[in-house]
């Protein structure tokens, strides 16, 4: 179980001025602003959960992760990872966790993957037979064999990621923190990483905390999602809850033959109808409506009666659009917590 309680991290940002003159000036001034990278964040994650932690660049995702992994000292608040304070009790905490930074390999540049793994085995004191089992498991799901004896510096990005991912799990951590594990990878490798994450979560009950910009990762891997923006949590709940809360608008697209277009005389809906919007486009019309205020069937039959319709398409809201809407609203939107 991981608990994060009113966790904050502030950075001092010294005011800089432009150009050479500005640089000289700022040398003699010590004006700074406090930037709250993470601002009183609280949540708790049970063992075995898989949580997507998302937000725009600079929202505070990585900073939160770095506090949970003991790399950064929180400015205030508390964080416990399986009962251990990550910063003050760093060495005990890191035994329980695995960490993958998509932007940076944790393996030793000059060593072959095989040697890196055997050094990690010694560092984490993994018993020989357990190590062999894990190695076989990861070699299988990540297909490490083709580059197992190659020095890390000669690996492709995708191979490095697979090796890094396996390396972070050799010691059977209770929780694995994945910071953008699929960044820059091709679809095939992405798929392999995603299915590996699902496997360890399902088969080994490893808790997964994942940050990413690829919402496909979240949709495939996570059951719960936490959205952070400007250091504050905007949403915390299941993906379905996200859709019902933010994705109330649905679209029905009616395809109308060209010959019939532009002949409409009376409007489809009374001009003061709430929760409904009609958009014309070259191939027909799109009716946007709020799911909780209107029935799909009623809308369709009404339109069918008044227009000659060739085809109908009902669109589910895309998670991408929902999240984008949350991001754009930013902290102006209200915080919704649905478990």
């Amino acid at each position: 179980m991981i608990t994060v309680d009113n966790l904050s991290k502030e950075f001092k940002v010294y005011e800089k001025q432009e150009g050479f003159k500005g640089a000289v000036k700022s040398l003699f001034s010590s004006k700074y602003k406090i930037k709250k990278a993470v601002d009183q964040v609280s949540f708790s994650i049970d063992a075995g959960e898989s949580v997507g932690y998302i937000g725009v660049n600079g929202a505070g995702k990585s900073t939160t992760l770095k506090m949970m992994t003991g790399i950064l000292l929180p400015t205030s608040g508390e964080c416990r990872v399986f009962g251990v304070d990550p910063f003050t009790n760093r060495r005990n905490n890191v035994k329980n966790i695995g960490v993958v930074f998509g932007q940076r390999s944790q393996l030793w540049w000059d060593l072959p993957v095989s040697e890196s793994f055997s050094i990690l085995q010694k560092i984490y004191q993994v018993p020989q037979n357990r190590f062999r089992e894990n190695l076989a498991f990861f070699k299988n799901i990540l297909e490490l064999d083709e580059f197992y004896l190659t020095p890390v510096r000669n690996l492709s990005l995708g191979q490095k990621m697979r090796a890094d991912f396996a390396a972070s799990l050799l010691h059977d951590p209770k929780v694995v923190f994945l910071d953008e594990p699929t960044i820059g990878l091709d679809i095939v490798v992405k798929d392999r990483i995603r299915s590996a994450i699902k496997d360890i979560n399902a088969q080994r009950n490893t808790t997964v905390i994942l940050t990413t910009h690829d919402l496909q990762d979240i949709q495939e891997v996570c059951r719960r999602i936490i959205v952070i923006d400007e250091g504050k949590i905007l949403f915390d709940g299941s993906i379905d809850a996200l859709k019902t809360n933010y994705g109330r608008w649905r679209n029905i697209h009616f395809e109308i033959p060209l010959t019939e277009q532009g002949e409409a005389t009376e409007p489809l809906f009374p001009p003061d109808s709430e929760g409904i919007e009609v958009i014309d486009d070259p191939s027909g019309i799109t009716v946007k409506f709020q799911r909780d205020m209107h029935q799909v069937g009623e809308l369709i039959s009404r339109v069918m009666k008044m227009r000659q319709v060739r085809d109908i398409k009902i669109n589910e809201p895309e998670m991408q659009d929902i999240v984008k809407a949350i991001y754009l609203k930013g902290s102006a939107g209200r915080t919704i917590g649905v478990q």
Partner: protein
Amino acid sequence: MIRFFRIYSAFFKQQVKSLIEYKLDFAAGMVALGFQQVASFLVLFAVFSQIQAIGSYSFDEMLLFFGWAQLMKGFDHVYNDNIWTVGWWRIRDGSFSQFLIRPLGIVSQIVMERLQFDGLGEFLIGLLIFIYAFIRTGLRFSFGDWLVFGYFFLCGLVIYFALKLLGASVAFWTISSGELMTVTYEIGSFTRYPLDMYKSAIIRSLLIYVLPFALVTWVPMVWFIREPQFIADILGIPWARGSALLGFTGGLTLILLGLSVGTWKAGLRRYNATGT
């Protein structure tokens, strides 16, 4: 501790392997460093071919300082070179973070990650010069002398270690402290020559109290070849004679180590892990 050496030896084996892989690179490095050593030795030799002694020291005694300084620097260079990377770039690019997610001491991880074989040349040449000078000066060591010798050796290594760690720690505040570390390290070469060669009281105090390189080279050597009173006079500390001098050296070493570890710890608290 056992685990430490087990992992250290794993890294060591890997390095030897890659040495074999990059034979030419290693050989070139050794040759270049060898030249450097021989050159500085020749300067000393050239000076002494004109004069037989500097101050109160004979040529052989000068060689003793020279050899010892070289040997210490070489030893430190071999085992504790990786800490430089913290000062140069590990804080700046955030790669320092990787030490924080392993269940081992941070400094031990840094130390064990890389042995610097280049330092081996320095060490060996230093050792040869030292042995030569040791024989020429006709020194004879009793068992007690060897103990004192070992004690000084240890203090010297700790001083080098503490100064490097302190220099690297500064990078937590300044992002990069490689230049500072270089300057500190270069000042260390002052102590190839005896402390009393420097007439300025400021330089002397600097080398005793601030960057105590004098305790690494000069004090240990002069201990064996001069009277206690002579050392106390030059140090400017009347009571620092005999075992009091040993205490003084150890005490200063420990203070420096404490200061350096304290700064390091304080630095860790404000490490801000740049880069995602």
